[in-house]
């Protein structure tokens, strides 16, 4: 966990006071909505269909148990008893009252939580691998650098009025769990031949209306130069990014239109003017950040304790362990993913009771630490393997032990038209129906790893472009219809999915997904050929034929 210093705490508290005054002036009529809108957005407050929505930042997806308890308190005290974890590792509250928002922010500030950089045309919450610091084989903890970027970009005047929003993601593992290739800037932590830390820098990735996979702009930027190099990128973007057309304002459009070589040249010229400046990070600055992260003191525990051997005879435990438990850098420990995808539930939603329960379990079993993944699940990053059976039983009581992580019912979905003012179609009921169709976990296991991502509009908060199966809701002649893509992925081999054919009606979506899955099961070369591999081997056509043959 990162411990805020006095400067951080002062900044957050001042922000609450400032917003309290702004809300007061808005409610009195002193500020018009036009004047107030940007101020509320800078504090994570959107207006949705039924109410204000309050988006709270969870930098790089790391939470303490006390912070999670406070989020539960906000859900209970100011909202309707639940929150929604998002694809940017944040949490949203859907029913909050403007008049009560300053109090909610003040309560969050007491535990070092805020809503800065969760909205607006600025640098957004920096995301990272939810297994950062504990994944086996990780080069080093990417959250050190995430935190550096967070501190550097927060309220930075030059980055507060960009042409459009701007998103960073960082990973330090070979397997990319942070989806860095679909971010404005993606950073892959590396070591050079001298063993020094640096980054492969990707730029111009993104989803939304015009999706692009990010391109490598520089294969290695030394860690000392990270801030100056990303600032050079942001300066070029600030100068040339389109402000006249919101649909062309993201950096991905600029990179695409200029071409990566020309864009890189512009960045290089900018960088050489500022490279050796106050932005150069010396080792002491990095170590100062590193020193404010606390790490657990692990015990030397057996990799296969008796408790685990005994529990392995329980098929229900084994089904859960197989999907939810991942190796940890310490052999006696494990990383446990907590599915927020119950059959028939809304993906990413957690009740206040569940949040409190997870906080208590984090204290008992995970050194008080919780992680949020962009797949809209939670994780306990430091669980002793001997405690896994007890943890599983406890999670089951809270409805958090659904054994479906990475399976077909582990669906990513945006809030869709049930909540969102931008949406054209519903997402959650589609996800719920699909989970009911594949509720049998044996069937889901037989299908194997398969990610379904659903967005209720072209803005792609549900990351549909990079779902193994992607579902995009659109409106046509007053009716919700859904475009289906297959073959997308968000990992180190990121690809955009391909459309399989004409959009299908709302009542037909789950049937179409069943058809695609049946086609896959019939077409796969062997039982362990994953859906993605079958699609890659055969292309879209056999799936198209299956889906549209009788429609």
């Amino acid at each position, binding site marked *: 966990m990162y411990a805020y210093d006095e400067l951080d705490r002062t900044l957050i508290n001042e922000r609450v006071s400032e917003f309290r005054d702004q809300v007061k002036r*808005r*409610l*009195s*009529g002193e500020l*018009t*909505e036009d004047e107030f809108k940007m101020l509320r957005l800078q504090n994570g407050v959107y*207006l*949705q*269909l*039924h*109410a*204000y929505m309050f988006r709270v930042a969870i930098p790089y997806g790391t939470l303490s148990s006390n912070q999670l308890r406070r989020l539960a308190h906000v859900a209970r005290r100011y909202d*309707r*008893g*639940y929150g929604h974890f998002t694809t940017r590792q944040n949490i949203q509250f859907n029913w*909050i*009252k*403007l*008049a009560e928002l300053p109090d909610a922010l003040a309560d969050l500030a007491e535990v070092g939580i805020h809503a800065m950089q969760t909205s607006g045309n600025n640098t957004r919450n920096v995301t990272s691998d939810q297994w950062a610091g504990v994944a086996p084989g990780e080069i080093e903890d990417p959250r050190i650098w995430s935190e550096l970027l967070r501190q550097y970009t927060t309220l930075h005047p030059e980055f507060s009025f960009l042409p459009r929003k701007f998103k960073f993601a960082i990973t330090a593992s070979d397997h990319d769990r942070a989806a860095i290739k679909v971010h404005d800037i993606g950073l892959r932590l590396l070591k050079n031949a001298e063993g020094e830390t640096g980054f492969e820098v990707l730029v111009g990735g993104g989803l939304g209306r015009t999706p692009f996979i990010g391109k490598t702009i520089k294969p290695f930027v030394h860690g000392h130069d990270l801030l100056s190099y990303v600032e050079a990128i942001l300066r070029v973007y600030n100068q040339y990014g389109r402000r006249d057309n919101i649909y062309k304002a993201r950096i991905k459009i600029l990179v695409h239109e200029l071409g990566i070589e020309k864009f890189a040249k512009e960045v290089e010229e900018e960088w050489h003017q500022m490279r050796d400046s106050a932005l150069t990070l010396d080792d002491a600055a990095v170590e100062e950040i590193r020193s404010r992260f606390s790490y657990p003191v692990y015990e030397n525990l057996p990799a296969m304790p008796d408790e685990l051997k005994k529990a392995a005879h329980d098929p229900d435990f084994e089904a859960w362990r197989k999907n939810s438990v991942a190796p940890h850098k310490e052999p006696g420990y494990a990383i446990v993913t907590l599915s927020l995808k119950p059959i028939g*539930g*809304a993906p990413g*939603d*957690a*009740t*206040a009771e569940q949040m409190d329960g997870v906080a208590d379990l984090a204290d008992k079993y995970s050194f008080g630490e919780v992680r949020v993944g962009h797949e809209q699940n939670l994780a306990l990053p430091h669980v002793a393997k001997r405690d896994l059976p007890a943890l599983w039983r406890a999670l089951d009581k809270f409805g958090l032990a659904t054994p479906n992580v990475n399976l077909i019912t582990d669906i990513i979905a945006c809030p869709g*038209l*049930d*909540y969102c003012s931008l949406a054209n179609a*519903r997402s*959650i*009921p589609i996800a*719920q129906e699909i989970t009911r169709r594949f509720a049998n976990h044996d069937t889901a296991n037989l299908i194997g790893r398969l990610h379904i991502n659903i967005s209720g509009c072209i803005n792609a908060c549900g990351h549909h472009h990079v779902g193994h199966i992607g579902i995009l809701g659109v409106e046509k002649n*007053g009716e*919700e219809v859904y475009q289906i893509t297959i073959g997308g992925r968000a990992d180190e081999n990121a690809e955009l999915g391909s459309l399989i054919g004409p959009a299908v009606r709302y009542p037909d979506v789950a049937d179409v997904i069943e058809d695609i899955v049946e086609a896959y099961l019939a077409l796969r070369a062997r039982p362990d050929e994953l859906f993605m591999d079958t699609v890659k081997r055969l292309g879209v056509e056999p799936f198209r034929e299956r889906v549209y043959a009788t429609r």
Partner: protein
Amino acid sequence: MVTANRTWDGAVIYRTSQQSWSARLADAAIVRTSDEARALLAESVADDVGAIGAYIAPIELKDGGEIAPGNLREHIRSEGVTIDLPVAG
């Protein structure tokens, strides 16, 4: 009709024929021409303190004169989400 969200809590509200706002769809002023709609919208937008984001929305007039939302978005705004909330009540 013209609908908006209430400023202090964001709740869905409808412009009435008495130049006020109501949380009940049944109270909404119904206009039938674009001129009437523009006038109702202009009057609604003028209340920047009480409401935000006012816009003209379609309605469906049932046989008995009852008003129903004119599209799915307005149906959801009027009746609430189409799913069960994680916490009852």
